[in-house]
């Protein structure tokens, strides 16, 4: 990421301008052409620096009232293989392997399950339990009760 990419990130991380030519507007801030902004953002999409460009819904507003962070205690040697299977389930939006904090926190696999109704969310939890089978050594589902902040990633303004 060079200095110009960095300026593009700073100019767009809060959102794209809502004008007919948003990349031209970004180009004016960064002092490059819209074609250059587009080319550089394409490259960032390609190399994964940009995950995606689009509308980010507040899932509560879309009626997803049941948003469970399901967490599972899976033997370390099976965690990667089983994590992949869980990530592939339709009911799961994100899935990660994370460190335990024993004794307070024994769970190492995290999978976000979302549902517009409780039954859907619970069915998701059951599906995961089925995938894990005998390797499920305990799980915990944490439903979120409130979004306290959601701003997305911010780089500081400093160089």
């Amino acid at each position, binding site marked *: 990421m060079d200095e110009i990419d960095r300026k593009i990130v700073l100019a767009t991380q809060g959102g794209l301008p809502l004008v007919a030519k948003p990349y031209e507007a970004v180009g004016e801030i960064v002092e490059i052409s819209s074609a250059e902004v587009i080319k550089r953002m394409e490259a960032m999409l390609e190399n994964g620096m940009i995950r995606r460009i689009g*509308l980010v*819904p507040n899932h509560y*507003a879309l009626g997803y009232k049941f948003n469970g962070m399901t967490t599972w205690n899976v033997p370390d040697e099976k965690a990667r293989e089983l994590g992949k299977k869980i990530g592939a389930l339709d009911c799961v*939006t994100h899935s*990660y392997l*994370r460190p335990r904090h024993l004794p307070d926190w024994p769970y190492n696999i995290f999978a976000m399950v979302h549902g517009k109704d409780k039954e859907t969310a619970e069915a998701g939890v059951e599906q995961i339990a089925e995938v894990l089978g005998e390797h499920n050594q305990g799980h915990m589902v944490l439903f979120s009760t*409130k979004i306290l902040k959601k701003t997305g*990633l911010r780089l500081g303004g400093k160089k």
Partner: protein
Amino acid sequence: MREDKTHLLDDKDRALINAYQGGFPLCENPFAVVGAVVGLSEDETITRIKRLLDEGVLTRFGPLYHAERMGGGLTLAAMKIPPEYFDEVVEKVNKFPEVAHNYERQHALNMWFVLATETPERIDEVVGEIEEVTGYKVYNMPKEEEFFVELKFEA
């Protein structure tokens, strides 16, 4: 923030949301392209996205950056806050610009947030700063592997 706002959505809103959680075009007049797909004029498309943001149906519109690939740090962290101090601690934690998302959850570990920092080293510093400012332990749970991240929300 938790409100169901689906009653505010019409078919065009749903079409926009369902079609463009990713893949927003990189071209001179992207809203015209999007509008043509959804059946709206360029202006109407812009106006609608503005409205959806104002109504809180959308939290953001634009590129989502990948912290680690940009050389930054990212982690999930949790805290165990006594309910009577919860609001006070939320305020302190949310003041950190590095706190990208923060959720209240039903568990002894009742606050869960994502930290996104400019450098990987900065994660530990921010964790330390949050512990110092709040007086509570931060359970840092950086991901060791990401299995799948996809958008599957339907309006």
